[in-house]
């Protein structure tokens, strides 16, 4: 009874050294929808995202307890290979991080390391995902330029295309618009809305209006605890918990 592409957390605790930053989180991320995680800064949103694709493995002092099931399989189980997990989850970070290579190479990077060698196929993949990220028309004439020459908004969409090219099922987005101007933010939001048909999206944001625009489900995280989780319409309009209400009305931020 496991939906495709669904993640579920069972009693997840995360520690940085002795400091516990996530406390007993249990949560089901529904497939083919946008789940938005909101909460004041420092409450553990980024940490939660990094649990999903095991980027926390790279943080020496971090320790994860509990189970994170992906398609019913615990991704922290010993037989699981971390690159496989990451390959199936794309990441869009706060500040776009283009790789130090050309626009084309940025998108081709993932497919190449995962074994795609045929030049024609790679060309095809690059075009397909640049289109999907809504960037193709802007960059098709300058594919061999260094990616760092793109505007910051274009860079973020390039990162999106790069992540999509690995053919993930989940997209993890950590405040993907916080470094962008309003116009570019709208653009990225529009892409995410289009993508949710085929992908399961987890989006971290601290902008409530963005949550309203995009969310199907909302999770409110406060001081490392999951306070409330449910359909966006319920959580954002009639929250059950007083802390959620306080956050939504702008009393805590």
């Amino acid at each position: 009874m496991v939906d495709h592409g669904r993640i579920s957390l069972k009693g997840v605790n995360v520690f940085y050294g002795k400091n516990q930053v996530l406390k007993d989180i249990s949560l089901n991320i529904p497939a083919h929808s946008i789940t938005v995680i909101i909460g004041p800064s420092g409450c553990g949103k980024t940490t939660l995202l990094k649990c999903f694709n095991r980027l926390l493995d790279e943080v020496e002092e971090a320790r994860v307890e509990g189970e994170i099931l992906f398609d019913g399989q615990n991704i922290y189980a010993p037989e699981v290979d971390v690159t496989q997990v990451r390959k199936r989850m794309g990441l869009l970070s706060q500040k776009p991080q283009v790789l130090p290579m050309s626009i084309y190479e940025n998108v081709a990077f993932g497919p190449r390391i995962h074994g795609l060698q045929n030049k024609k196929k790679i060309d095809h993949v690059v075009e397909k995902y640049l289109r999907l990220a809504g960037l193709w028309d802007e960059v098709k004439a300058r594919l061999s330029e260094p990616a760092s020459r793109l505007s910051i908004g274009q860079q973020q969409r390039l990162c999106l295309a790069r992540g999509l090219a690995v053919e993930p099922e989940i997209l993890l987005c950590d405040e993907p618009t916080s470094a962008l101007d309003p116009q570019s933010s709208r653009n990225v939001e529009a892409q995410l809305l289009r993508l949710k048909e085929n992908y399961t999206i987890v989006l971290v944001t601290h902008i409530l209006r963005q949550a309203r625009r995009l969310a199907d489900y909302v999770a409110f995280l406060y001081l490392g605890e999951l306070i409330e989780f449910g359909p966006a319409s319920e959580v954002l309009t009639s929250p059950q918990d007083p802390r959620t209400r306080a956050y939504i009305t702008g009393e805590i931020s």
Partner: protein
Amino acid sequence: MLRQPLSADIRLKRRKRLDRAFHCLMLISASLVVIFLLLILGIILGKSLPALKISMITRTPGTGYYLGQEGGILNAIVGSMEITTGATLLALIIALPGVIFLNTYLKKKSAWAELIRLMLDILWGIPSIVYGAFGFLLMLTLHLRASLLAGMVTLALVELPILARSVDETMRLVPSELKEAAFSLGASRWQTATRVVLRQVFPGLITAILIALGRGLGDAASVLFTAGYTDRLTTSLLQPVATLPLAIFFQLNSPFPEVQQRAFASAAILTLMILAISLAARFLGRHLGRHRIK
């Protein structure tokens, strides 16, 4: 729908092997570096501690010392201390006001500041043998003989860029808000620099001085033609002076095993002095920072 497995497939296993091989290579390299360090320290201390007698540090070379007779290298120990202390002080006096000027009177990106920093970089890269040659030419022009004074000046030139660059590095990190706060209290530039900025960088300054001191203590090429060498203690600026690196160098070239033994012992003394200085630099750098604003 067919689920992809989360365990590694064949291609991925190959990539992982490459990853591990690379990891091994790096571990090997790092171990090599550690082994070299241990080998060097081991052989210096192992060869030399047995040869270390108390007379080495309490006596100057007696007659026939270089043929294996009695004596010690007190002359070189004292000489090294004299010349290095003097050179470091001199370098400090020349460099410090300039570094302050660079950081308080000049704008961060001004062309002058760039030029001066470039020159410091160049000076830093100039080998000490070239400083030695320059010092020798200077000596000839001024009609000086090889002496404590000449050696000290030359060594000061070697230490100058080391000192200036590391003090400059720490001063550049002083937040400009701190300076602005001092200015807004009505402090002049010079007062700000000496009372606020200098206090803020004090631990860094001490570390820089100790690093320069360590370099000066170990430098042989710059004093080779400028400091001369003597078996007696040096009591005036115009007398020649012995230094530890040169004492080691000369004794190593001796055909007598007894004298070579003493070279090893001298090396141990020099190494221990350098170790002490670098430990002091580390310790003081960590513990002097109490009044600093983070």
